[in-house]
């Protein structure tokens, strides 16, 4: 197990994992509190359309994915504001259309040799140094934005109507939050995959909510939990030669269930 730490590709994967965990730990609780899990799922799957398009046109996959995720976020944010009663239907459409666009583009690409599975389920080998820098910069942006708009996000999540009445730009904040979710999805795509990222956005925040009582503390605890899950998952992925995404999610699921039971037992012994 320790020889893994010597290998550059594994070191990159670990650093990437920690950087992704920070983004996910901060954004996850906000997405959960705003009941955006399904929206995040829609964005993640629609991102696949951008991956397919990028392969077809021979451009950067990261750029393609980022564009597609932002478009999906904008579409979902707009629909949920204008037609709030049909939000879930609209998300389902964005979800499926994005996914099938990706499949069609990759079908049309003559002799493409990229492993598309690695975008869906993550690959420990997929991260290089330039990705790490990008992730670090993005983490910094998230920390600054969430710190600056902390109380605005809080107001948006607790009572959007009142917030708007008090001059908070709720529609912009809603889109900003979905945009941050979209960027998190794109960055996490390489390591845990588009399909798995949703589980990582939800599980740490679900657990931490049961142990602490303010948004800031929930974010801190989810960051720590996410880091633990990612590191353990990557080690297992290396040791047993399995997909990193699936491995991380399985560890997270065990962690979540364990924490749930601990809270239950502690609660009943009181």
């Amino acid at each position, binding site marked *: 197990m320790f020889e893994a730490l010597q290998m550059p590709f594994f070191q990159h994967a670990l650093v990437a994992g920690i950087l992704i965990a920070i983004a996910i730990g901060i954004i996850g*609780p906000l997405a959960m*509190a705003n*009941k955006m899990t399904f929206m995040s799922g829609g964005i993640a799957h629609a991102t696949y359309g951008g991956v397919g398009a990028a392969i077809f046109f021979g451009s950067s996959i990261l750029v393609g994915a980022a564009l597609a995720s932002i478009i999906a976020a904008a579409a979902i944010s707009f629909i949920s504001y204008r037609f709030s009663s049909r939000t879930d239907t609209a998300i389902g459409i964005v979800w499926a259309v994005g996914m099938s666009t990706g499949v069609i583009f990759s079908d049309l690409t003559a002799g493409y040799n990229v492993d598309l599975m690695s975008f869906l389920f993550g690959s420990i080998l997929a991260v290089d140094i330039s990705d790490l820098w990008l992730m670090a910069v993005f983490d910094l942006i998230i920390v600054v934005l969430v710190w*600056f*708009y*902390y*109380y*605005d996000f*809080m*107001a948006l*999540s*607790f*009572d959007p*109507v*009142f*917030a*708007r*009445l*008090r*001059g*908070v730009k709720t529609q912009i904040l809603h889109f900003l939050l979905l945009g941050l979710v979209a960027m998190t999805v794109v960055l996490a795509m390489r390591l845990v995959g588009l399909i798995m990222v949703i589980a990582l956005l939800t599980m740490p925040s679900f657990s931490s*909510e049961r142990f*602490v*009582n*303010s*948004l800031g503390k*929930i974010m801190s605890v989810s960051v720590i939990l996410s880091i633990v899950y990612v590191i353990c998952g990557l080690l297992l992925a290396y040791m047993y030669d399995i997909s990193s995404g699936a491995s991380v999610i399985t560890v997270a699921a065990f962690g979540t269930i364990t924490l749930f039971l601990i809270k239950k037992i502690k609660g009943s012994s009181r």
Partner: protein
Amino acid sequence: MKNLAVELDGVSFFYNGKEILHNVSISVSKGDFLAIIGPNGGGKSTLLKLMMGILKPLHGEIRLFGKTPAKSGIAIGYVPQETGHNIDFPITVMEVVLMGVIHRRNILRRYNHILKQKAAKALQRVNMYSFAERKISELSGGQRQRVLIARALCGDPDILMLDEPTASIDFRGQKEIFELLEELNEKITVIVVSHDMSMVMGFAKHAAYVNKSVIMHTIDSHTRYQIKQQLEGHNGHYCGAEFWQDVGHRIECNEECRHV
């Protein structure tokens, strides 16, 4: 003119092509305690939201203290319906009350000392200061409504607007909330949407019956006094039938009302 808090002049409102309010003209004077009553779907909340400027009328004009709601600069203390907010959200009582002054934060978007003191004072005003650090989801329905009233008071409102503040609260809690509103009404105008006829008749000065159109009723102080006496006698339960028996024809209607 100067003594009017809210004026509606020929206001109509449509939602999805359906007329919700038709040609509504009413005025509410400063210092009034107005209850908005009427059947579900009759347009009560819509009327309140129009007064706040959250919704815009298709026809007609609305003035808040003489100006259009959006431009009036009037501080509205809004208390939403119980279902309007996300009570599972991890937020403390203090943080909720501070939302009332969210537009007055400093350049780093943080609450300064003065704002925190204001929030503490508002919590003391509604007798909830000892709960300041508790999570909002741990409170009872009545306590939560007090906190939301504190949030509204925190912004020094010129007018309080409440949307069914007692919908899911027991009799005693309802009475406490209305007693608090009556106290606050000594200084500010109060408009409350309510289902609860006994509370409305015991505490409000006017009642607007909304069912597409609006009919104004005056509730005189004598009636209020009598209903309050009745409420005293019913500790815990006071049903509609008992209420109407007690009231009989003591409700004083204006001319429009007698046509119906």
